[in-house]
């Protein structure tokens, strides 16, 4: 039996009271050991900021394990209370910000060879009839990034580079360009 999936539709402009009532922008407290801040701005194809996007993130723990029953590698510790999920809106100036820990490496498509540490990202907004999916990679992982099986799916090196956050000292920057010359790489998952 195979039932066709229910079609996706846009989140529209009026979701915030329902979906953003709880603050889910701190996956760990800011004073947690190893806490990092990642921030950025969402831009449209005209270079204007997008003030009405919703962003969700999903990531492994610092040890490289997902808080999910299918990741049964119990020898990898899950930090108490760490769910690996974040959800937040872009502000009127198009910016977003969240606090997390850098995830550990998790296995790639073959189940063995490692992926570089990454955060999975969903972008929802008015005008997007389906979510856009991308990933945040880390600038201090050049060697692992160069071998990452998912990054290597993006053939154009310039486009691939959009997936690596920029180190700003006290935070990492990951801007999201929906369209245009600087468009972020998006995935069909």
């Amino acid at each position, binding site marked *: 039996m195979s039932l066709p999936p229910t079609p996706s539709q*846009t989140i529209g402009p009026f979701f915030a009271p329902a979906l953003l009532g709880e603050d889910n922008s701190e996956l760990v407290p800011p004073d947690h050991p190893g806490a990092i801040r990642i921030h950025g701005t969402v831009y449209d194809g005209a270079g204007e900021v997008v003030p009405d996007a919703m962003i969700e993130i999903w990531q492994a723990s610092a040890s490289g394990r997902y808080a999910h029953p299918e990741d049964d590698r119990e020898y990898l510790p899950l930090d108490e209370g760490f769910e690996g*999920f974040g959800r937040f809106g872009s502000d009127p100036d198009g910016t977003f910000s969240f606090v997390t820990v850098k995830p550990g490496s998790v296995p790639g498509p073959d189940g063995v060879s490692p992926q570089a540490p990454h955060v999975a990202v969903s972008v929802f907004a008015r005008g*997007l009839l389906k979510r856009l999916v991308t990933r945040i990679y880390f600038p201090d992982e050049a060697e692992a990034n160069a071998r990452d099986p998912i990054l290597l799916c993006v053939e154009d090196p310039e486009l691939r580079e959009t997936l690596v956050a920029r180190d700003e000292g006290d935070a990492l920057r990951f801007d999201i360009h929906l369209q245009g010359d600087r468009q*972020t790489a998006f*995935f069909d998952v």
Partner: protein
Amino acid sequence: MARESRIRVPGYRRDDDGSTLRHPDYGSTRLRVPERPLTIIPHTLTEVTGPAYGHGRVGPQDNDLTVGHQGEPLGERIIVTGRVMSGDGRPVRNTLVEIWQANAAGRYVHAGDRHPAPLDPNFTGAGRCMTDDEGRYRFVTIKPGAYPWRNHENAWRPAHIHFSLFGPAFATRLITQMYFPGDPLFSQDPIFQSVRDPKDQQRLISTFDLSVTEPEWALGYNFDIILRGRERTPMEDHA
């Protein structure tokens, strides 16, 4: 350790849901849809796992949008229920369903909604619940009104309720809209029409259901939701 370090999991099916990103009739797509093709990636542990969001957070009355205020909201009281299933027909249990909608006059509780229709002090328009062991969800609410928007000359959105679902994995995340049967506004609505095939459009339209209707209380609508199914053959590595 060799055995333990192997974790190979089946991915999710890539069945076409009938939706599309590129649909210029919907004006907001024009500057927001990526022009470069999406990169198809294989499913890894990242995509086949996903958040257990909502567990332990949902209150028993969160699925009744008609309570929690001083009085009752105006409008036609309705029950919206259905099953969340995966593409292989199995129930998706214990997953969060979130909804939001306009009030009976077609107005959202949102600063950005400028439609000159009244707000209802007894209606916020947001609800949530977890699916049960059969994948079933149930909301009590009022029928949302149609409302005008500025997409094109004399543009009106058909009455709809927004649905957000997680399912078991990052890959199964879905945000969609539920419509009501026989709405005369379907033909001119570019969001509804962005799903082009009438067969696919049907999966966005609830059905009136007399068995869900409660006598002298509320009309009942049924709306089943299908999330992506799993690839059939698990690619477990027993090496």
